[in-house]
């Protein structure tokens, strides 16, 4: 096909603009998302969620092509201005109604089967290797380790540089702050290749703990304990960032979740360091701090009247 020079130049310019626009507008993601789509994630669960999302997405695109195609065709082919004569006898068809009821049901079943399968996997918190109790506060997270890391207990709050920059009219450009709004003073630390179970609750209002790359989100509800699990793939050590995902008041947007994933050996070393740091302080602070929690998670206590 011969294309004139002007047309070729226009086409190139168009493609370049589209390319730059896409690249520019997608931004620099702080997770494994490309800026347009879900993160592919660093856990098997997150990857499966991404795959199911893409399956449903493409099915929707397919349906859209057919349905919007029919609509657009009608708009073009059946115009009064072009002299189209309406077929006023075309008023109903039971056969067609049955067909376009049954086919969507079939499509939905096709989506529901892998979905049900994935929910079953997501809800299976059995055989966890490390449990961590996470408590939401207005406006920070508390992490209390259990099992082999029992005794480690700390708060995780928005990092100072972000906190200064986010004040109204701070004059600080967020682009100059590393991991603006997604950095904390002390992140959660977990080992890779380990089934980690989060026991989630809240001290005040409903919060939600969410790390997109893990595919893990659950509400933190005062007086109740929710459970989720995830297992970061070995080889995917690094820092992963998320946010509170339930409106919890003034600083809902300013209580991020940051997780450092270490190799199991590095994690063991980290645990020892934390416990060592706690020892001298433990004696002095025993009177002041609340005793570490028992091995089982606390249940809602009904106060006697």
């Amino acid at each position, binding site marked *: 096909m011969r294309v004139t020079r002007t047309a070729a130049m226009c086409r190139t310019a168009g493609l370049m603009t589209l390319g730059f626009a896409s690249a520019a507008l997608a*931004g620099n*993601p702080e997770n494994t998302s490309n800026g347009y789509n879900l993160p592919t994630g660093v856990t098997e669960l997150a990857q499966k969620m991404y795959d199911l999302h893409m399956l449903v997405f493409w099915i929707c695109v397919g349906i859209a092509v057919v349905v919007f195609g029919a609509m657009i065709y009608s708009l073009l082919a059946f115009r009064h201005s072009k002299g189209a004569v*309406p*077929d*006023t006898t075309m008023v109903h068809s039971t056969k067609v109604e049955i067909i376009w009821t049954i086919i969507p049901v079939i499509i939905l079943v096709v989506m529901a089967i892998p979905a049900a399968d994935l929910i079953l996997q997501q809800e299976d918190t059995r055989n966890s290797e490390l449990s961590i109790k996470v408590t939401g506060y207005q406006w920070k997270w508390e992490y209390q380790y259990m099992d082999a890391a029992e005794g480690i207990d700390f708060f995780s709050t928005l990092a100072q540089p972000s906190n200064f920059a986010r004040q109204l009219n701070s004059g600080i450009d967020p*682009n100059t702050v590393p991991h603006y709004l997604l950095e904390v003073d002390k992140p959660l630390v977990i080992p890779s290749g380990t089934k980690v179970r989060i026991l989630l609750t809240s001290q005040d209002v409903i919060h939600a703990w969410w790390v997109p790359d893990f595919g893990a*989100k659950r509400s933190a509800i005062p*007086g109740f304990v929710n459970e989720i699990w995830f297992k970061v793939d070995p080889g995917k050590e690094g820092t992963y960032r998320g*946010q509170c995902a339930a409106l919890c008041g003034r600083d809902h947007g300013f209580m991020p979740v940051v997780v450092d994933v270490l190799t199991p050996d590095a994690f063991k070393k980290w645990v020892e360091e934390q416990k060592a740091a706690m020892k001298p302080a433990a004696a002095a602070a025993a009177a002041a701090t609340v005793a570490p929690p028992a091995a089982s998670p606390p249940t809602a206590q009904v106060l006697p009247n």
Partner: protein
Amino acid sequence: MAQTHATDTAHHDEHDHGPAQGIKRWLFATNHKDIGTMYLVFSLIMFFIGGAMAMVIRAELFKPGLQLVQPEFFNQMTTNHALIMIFGAVMPAFVGLANWMIPMQIGAPDMALPRMNNFSFWILPFAFTLLLSTMFVPGGMAAGGWTLYPPLSLQTGDSFPMLIFAIHMMGASSIMGAINVIVTIMNMRAPGMNLLKMPLFCWSWLITAYLLIAVMPVLAGAVTMLLTDHFFGTSFFNAAGGGDPVMFEHIFWFFGHPEVYIMILPAFGIISEILPTFSRKPLFGATSMIYAIASIAFLSFIVWGHHMFVDGMPLAAQLFYMMSTMLIAVPTGVKVFNWTATMWKGSLSFEPPMLFALSFLFLFTIGGFSGVMLAIVPVDFQYNQTYFVVAHFHYVLVPGAIFAIMGAVYYWIPKWTGHMYNMTLAKWHFWLSTIFVNVLFFPQHFLGLAGMPRRIPDYSVQFTDWNMVSSIGGFGFGLTQILFAVIVIQSIRGGKKASAEVWDGATPTGLEWTLPSPAPYHSFTTAPEVK
């Protein structure tokens, strides 16, 4: 309005006076046309107020960092933007359309309960004055989201009882309006107008009215429990006292899910009126369409858990709510297919009402697709409480419900005022609205998928570009709506005379088109013949 001279001769000796003059006409209105007008004017004003709040939101979100408002004020804006749009703009607009059109479409002289009709309307300005005045009270407006989840909503300051009372008033207004619609439709149809001959707009409102009566009392219960938890020491939603915050979510969403169908079913009715007219072809599968609305209404009662997937729901419940939610796509899809079939082999013209109806058809369907995606529980764990949800519901509510309302106004206002409006201006309004609504909301899908939570005043810099695009769309969309107000005001004041049929080339069916334009102050005082 251009109807000060009653042309109806049947009641010459009884009502020879025409409408009352001055403020009394409106304060003591019992005429469905006057009450309809008041609802519509009220809803347009509230649309701009809610829209102004949205502009504050998009202005703050234009760039990362906080430049304009404190986070707590931002939360007040998101909360009240929703409350005002839902309860002040969309719902009253549909009630206004119901008031204007149902009596005329069924050949009735007025609504069955005209004084209750008056009361239903006049509650609203009081309720919203109360709600808006919370801005000036210590602690400011409610800021816990329009969903009012405890314990957060119980941290609201002095405005809390005002908020609850305002919601009670709005609920009472809706319930009374719904009763009026049902009684009118069931009792006052002209002889020969059996239910299956009734226009789809009336059908959609009949079903919507039952939904309203079923669920508004549930909202009233939910907010009353919040009130007693706050002031009278109850512990409905406080675990320490034996209660459960999640129970509020159940009660709220048992109302909330049918509520969103309350906001869309009349829109479906409107589209089923407009599309056949401008396709010059009857609605395809009208009976099927009625069954579809009824199915959607029934299903709407058993899906509320899909707003709560992230709360720690038992597996069986997750599976149940996933299936039931996906199932709603079936009757909704049937409607989309029937509308498309109405256009197929029709003879289409593109006046402003048709333009809005077509835009609805495309863009509501996109909202429907994101709804199906949200129903898939395992992936909803990623979508939930992100901008993906915000994109979904704004697609079904803005180019969904709001465009249907605007299409209805463009369709019927020549019947109400007797004047054709400025078509060129209306087409500008349409094109700018359609383009900007997509610039505003489509990028929010990307933001949600990429990980941006909702209800935050500030965000990580990776979300900058799409937020900027969305905000530009927001400003454009908001400013464009001024055109709508101009067109409506112009149409009231004057314009080319409209014929009885108004859309002469398009042969609209329905009793309203047998009346002159403007419709007489009292129409169908003698029942028409319906064959």
